C-alpha cells in the first residue's frame, strides 16, 4: 500500500507498533491482520506538515529497531500515563499520538482488502442507528 503522508518505512514501523498495542487474541485480529493501516491517510489528512515529518522520522527509525526495543519503548510511554518526571510529558504526548493513530484505525470499522473477518466494532457488538430527516 501507499500513503500520501507516511513513507514505506514509517508504515512498517506503524504496523510493528500496532501489533504490540493490539495483538491477535480474545477473538480479535491483530492490527496488521485487520489491514486498517490502508486507511491511514484518513486519520492524518489534517495533521500539520511539521507533525507528519516528525512522525515519519520516528516511525521510520522504529522500523529498523528489533521488536523488543519497540516493545520497551511502547511500555515506557504507557507507564508515563501515570508517572511524573522530566520526560513524562513528552512520553505521554507520544503515547497519546500512538494510541490516537492505532486505536482510531483499529476501531474505524475499516479494514484492508485482504481481511475477510469481522471488524473490531462488530466484535464488540457496536452499532448505531441515525436516520437523517428528509
Amino acid at each position, binding site marked *: 500500500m501507499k500513503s500520501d503522508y507516511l513513507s514505506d518505512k514509517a508504515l512498517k514501523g506503524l504496523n510493528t507498533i500496532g501489533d*504490540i*498495542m*493490539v*495483538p491477535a*487474541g*480474545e*477473538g*480479535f485480529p491483530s492490527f496488521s491482520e485487520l489491514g486498517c493501516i490502508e*486507511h491511514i491517510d*484518513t*486519520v*492524518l*489528512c*489534517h*495533521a500539520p506538515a*511539521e507533525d507528519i515529518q516528525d512522525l515519519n522520522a520516528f516511525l521510520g527509525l522504529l522500523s529498523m529497531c528489533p521488536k523488543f526495543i519497540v516493545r520497551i519503548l*511502547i511500555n515506557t510511554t*504507557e507507564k508515563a*500515563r*501515570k508517572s511524573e518526571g522530566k520526560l*513524562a*510529558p*513528552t512520553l*505521554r*504526548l507520544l503515547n*497519546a499520538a500512538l*494510541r*490516537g493513530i492505532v*486505536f*482510531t*484505525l*483499529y*476501531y*474505524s*470499522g*475499516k479494514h484492508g482488502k485482504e481481511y475477510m473477518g469481522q471488524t*473490531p*466494532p462488530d*466484535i*464488540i*457488538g*457496536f452499532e*448505531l*442507528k*441515525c*436516520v*437523517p*430527516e428528509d
Partner: protein
Amino acid sequence: MYDAIVVGSGAAGGVLAYNLNKSGAKVLLLEAGKDFRAKTFPKTEAEASPELFYGGGIEFDKRTTMGFLRARCLGGTTIVNQALLDRFDDVAFDDWRADTGVDWFSQDGLIRDYDAVEEKLEFTYIKEKHRNKSAHKFIDGMEKTGYEWGALRRGQGNCATDQGQDCIDCLNGCKRNSKQSTLVGYIQDAEREGLEIKCDFSVEHFEDNGDTVKVYCRHSGQDKVFETKKLILSAGSFGTTQILLKAELKHRLSAVGTGFTTHPQFLMFGVFDEIIDAHKGAFQSVKSDDPRFRPRGFKLENVYAQPIGISQLSPAIGLDFHRYMMKYRHISCVEVAVRDEATGTIALNSKGRLTIQKDLTDQDKSRSQDGLSIIREVLSAAGATEVIEGDIHFGLHLMGGARMGVSADDSVVDPEFKVHGMENVMVCDSSLFPNAPGINPSLTIMAMAHKLATQLSDRKVG
C-alpha cells in the same frame, strides 16, 4: 468595507452574525474550519475527529495530562457538543461581579438576552420512558445513595430517540438538523437573509487603524485581507487569545492569556454483568441536582462515547485492551466536572503555536476526588461489579484568556466588550469569562452575543 467582521461561528459568532445581519449591517462571518451541513457531516467517528476538531481530535496541555476538545467547523463547538443549555445561577454571577466589578453580570442583566435566545431555539427534557439504561443505572445509584438528580435541559428539536435513533452520533455533527447548534438555530437562517460566510479562513492577526480595522487571514495557502468598521473576535478561548497574542497586545494588556479555566472532567466507568448499551438512544439525559454539590464545586453527568473515544481511555494495551473493549456494552459512565480555579495560561511558542499550561490546584484535585468518590458509591449502589477510573481528564469548556473587567490593569475587555483602548475591536465568547461558572457555558455565551448584537444595533452599526 464591512460594517462588522465576526471571527468564529460557534456559540457567540453564530448569534452575533445572525442578529447583526438582521439589523441591516453588512456582516462577514469568518470560520477557520470547513462548511459541513446535515447531509455532509463526517459519517464515522474516525473521519469526524480530524475533520471537525483541532489537533486531529484532541489537543493537550504542556504536561499532557489534560486533553482539550475544540471544534473547527462552521457552527464551532455547538456542532459537536451535547447542547446542554442552562442559564447561570446567582452563585456564578455573584462571583463574576465580585471578581470584575462588571455590574451586568447577573441574571437580570442578561434576562432579555436569555429570553431572546430561548425563544429562537428548541429545548427538551428526555422523558423517562426514552432514557437509556445507563441513565436508569445513574438514577438508581443516586437514589440508593441519597443524592438528588435531575433531567438535563437539552437544545434539540426532533431527535426521534423514541423511534430508535442513537443520538450519540450527533457528537460528529447532527444529521437531522435537530441539535440546536448555531448552524441550525442561527447561521442557516442568516444565510438565507444574505449573510456572507467564508469558511476555511484562518485569521492570523489584525491592525487597528483608528476608524477601521484590517483583518489578515490565510485561505488555501494564500493571504487575504479584509477591512471592517468593527472586528468582533468570537473564536473561543484558544482562538481569540491566539489572535490577541499575535497582535502583540500582551505588551499592553498583561491579562491576555491568563485566567484559563475549563471545568476539568474526570470519567469513571461502572462495569455491569448485564448489557447497558450506554451509547444507544438518548445517551445523555440526566445529571446530579443535589444542592450539596454546588458549594463543593462539582457536578455529575451521565456520559459515554463511541468505541474510538472509549478505546483511548483503556488502562492497558495488548490482550488486556481487548478484554477492556469487550466490556463496551456493559459500561455505564459518569463524569465529574469540576468548577476549577482560573490559574491556567494560554501562550504562543516560538513557532506561533498555542501552549496551554493548566495544572490542577489542590482545590481542583480535592473537588475531583470528592466527586469521583461519590461516583464510585453511586455506580456500586447501582450494581456495578467493577469500577474503572480514567487516567486522563478532559477540558471541554474552554474559558478565559481575555477576561472582561473595568480596569485594563487586570482585564482585556471592558464591560462593553471592547478591547481596552480599542474602539473597534471587540471580544465576545467564552474567553471573556473571568472564572469558571461551574455550569455549561453555551447558553450564556449565546446570551452575551445577543447582548452585544443589540448594543451594536442600537448604535446603528451599519
